[in-house]
């Protein structure tokens, strides 16, 4: 039996909302934190899904934007907590602890980085695109490691979670709510985007670049914008992730994380709206449940991934709704 995808999406969101509420009632704050992690990873993967799932380009460097978001938060909050001045040359600031400001900075810097990286790497496709984005990722990773002002290899700790006007962000459920609202917003924008002329053209460019050129559209420009949007969303997720842990380190830039994001999407369903959300749920659940039993839980994840790639290309969403995933 196959489920209606809209109904399934609704059920997934309801589940995301109700589990933390249940945890609140039975007073298990750790579960809420775990669910916040799910939501943030899902948001990062929703970002990647734009360029990977709809645009058909496997970016193996999305940790760049996650890390940029993380360091945007880390650097701004670090200067605010140490009362030191951050001198950009053009303007001077003493940092901030306000989440909305941090988010905007994280997104703006991520978008700029995505634009510059995109201009260079979108001349290629396929394996070359994977390699060039991986190379950029490694550049950022080693740059972060060798940046002593902000902790270098040890990373940067932020003592108190940043603030959001009117909310107590230290209460796990309130911070969870902030993240969930942002995720829902991103999903809504993604749903609109996919059906828009831009989304239709981007999706067609994935299937045949020559097709969109023949109707007078430059596929490279479509992909560049998709890459920028994609990096922006993942950058926002990075800022939230840093706030969740109150810690940033070069690990956020690691290629392993770029790989995890791809794995999330493949598990959930490539190009499917809720694919990243389902993927993040499965990933965190396995990490938590199996990770407690054995260090080798990634082997199980690998087996699941293998099964999906071999037998069910649509991921979990595709399996439940009977629809194939986007072919990348």
């Amino acid at each position, binding site marked *: 039996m196959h489920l209606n995808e809209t109904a399934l999406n609704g059920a997934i969101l309801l589940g995301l909302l109700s589990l933390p509420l249940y945890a609140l009632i039975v007073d298990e704050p750790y579960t809420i934190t775990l669910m916040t992690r799910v939501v943030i990873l899902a948001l990062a993967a929703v970002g990647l899904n734009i360029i990977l799932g709809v645009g058909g380009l496997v970016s193996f460097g999305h940790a760049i934007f996650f890390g940029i978001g993380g360091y945007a938060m880390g650097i701004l909050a670090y200067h605010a907590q140490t009362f030191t001045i951050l001198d950009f040359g053009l303007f001077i600031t003493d940092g901030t602890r306000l989440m909305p400001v941090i988010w905007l900075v994280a997104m703006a810097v991520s978008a700029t980085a995505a634009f510059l990286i995109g201009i260079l790497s979108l001349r290629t496709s396929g394996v070359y695109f994977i390699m060039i984005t991986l190379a950029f990722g490694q550049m950022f990773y080693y740059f972060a490691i060798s940046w002593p002002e902000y902790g270098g290899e040890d990373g940067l700790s932020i003592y108190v979670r940043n603030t959001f006007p009117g909310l107590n962000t230290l209460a796990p459920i309130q911070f969870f709510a902030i993240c969930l609202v942002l995720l829902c917003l991103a999903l809504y924008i993604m749903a*609109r*985007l996919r*059906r*828009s*002329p*831009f*989304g*239709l*053209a*981007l*999706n*067609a460019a994935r*299937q*045949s670049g*020559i*097709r*969109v*050129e*023949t*109707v*007078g*559209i*430059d*596929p490279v420009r*479509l992909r560049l914008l998709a890459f920028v949007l994609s990096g922006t969303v993942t950058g926002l997720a990075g800022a939230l992730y840093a706030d969740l842990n109150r810690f940033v380190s070069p690990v956020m830039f690691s290629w392993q994380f770029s790989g995890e994001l791809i794995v999330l999407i493949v598990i959930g369903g490539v190009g499917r709206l809720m694919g990243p959300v389902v993927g993040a749920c499965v990933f965190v659940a396995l990490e938590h449940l199996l990770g407690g039993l054995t260090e080798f839980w990634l082997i199980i994840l690998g087996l699941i991934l293998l099964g999906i790639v071999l037998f069910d290309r649509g991921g979990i969403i595709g399996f439940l709704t009977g629809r*194939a995933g*986007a*072919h990348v």
Partner: protein
Amino acid sequence: MSEPVLQTSGLTKRFGALLATDAVSIDLRAGEIHAIIGPNGAGKSTLIEQICGGVRPDAGRVLLMKKDISALGRHARARAGLGRTFQISALAMEDSVLENVVLGAIGAGAGPWHFWRSALASETLTDRARSALSRVGLMDRHDRICATLSHGQRRMLEVAVALTLLPRVFVMDEPMAGLGADGSKLMTAFLDDLRHEAPILLVEHDMDAVFTLADRISVMVHGKVIATGTSAEIRMNRLVREAYLGDLA
């Protein structure tokens, strides 16, 4: 004689030792079908690619409505008015028939830089798309996924997408390829009318269709145009008969 709508002058392309096109100068006038024929490997596809922007010529120019479009890429040439169909269907196979045609309407209309409104909910786009679909007889299949269409239907869909562009010139690479006798007949009748909307540069192996449709025929052999003329002239041309037509004519 009317002004040429599309003109190539001295298009030359060399791939290593192979001279794929050798100073090819042809033109296409309003209201006509100009067919390019020639044996496999004669350079017809390379010529088409040079006209449409997929291959950069080593020498020569392409003029559309007297404007030099030689420096433009594929997509810019499409916007300038080249409506192309492919030898091997290049469609968005996972998308519906309607979505494929709406893509054409997007490219020809306001472009893809709209992010909020649903493309299929836009009447401007779907009206244009539906009218193209009904002209090629695919209206009743508008919600089918492209990959489930028959070969002949995909061919017609290619034409429908080109129609949405309202091009100045159609460039068609073997539209009859793989169509059965009935399909060829349908396509022939369709192209016969289409020439009055915009002239057609037609590369085709189906000689019945070529001699039925073409106002003029150019014969390519080894990268060179060895003859251009009406069907009757080409049939009678001794060079052509020796080089290519053999017993066909």
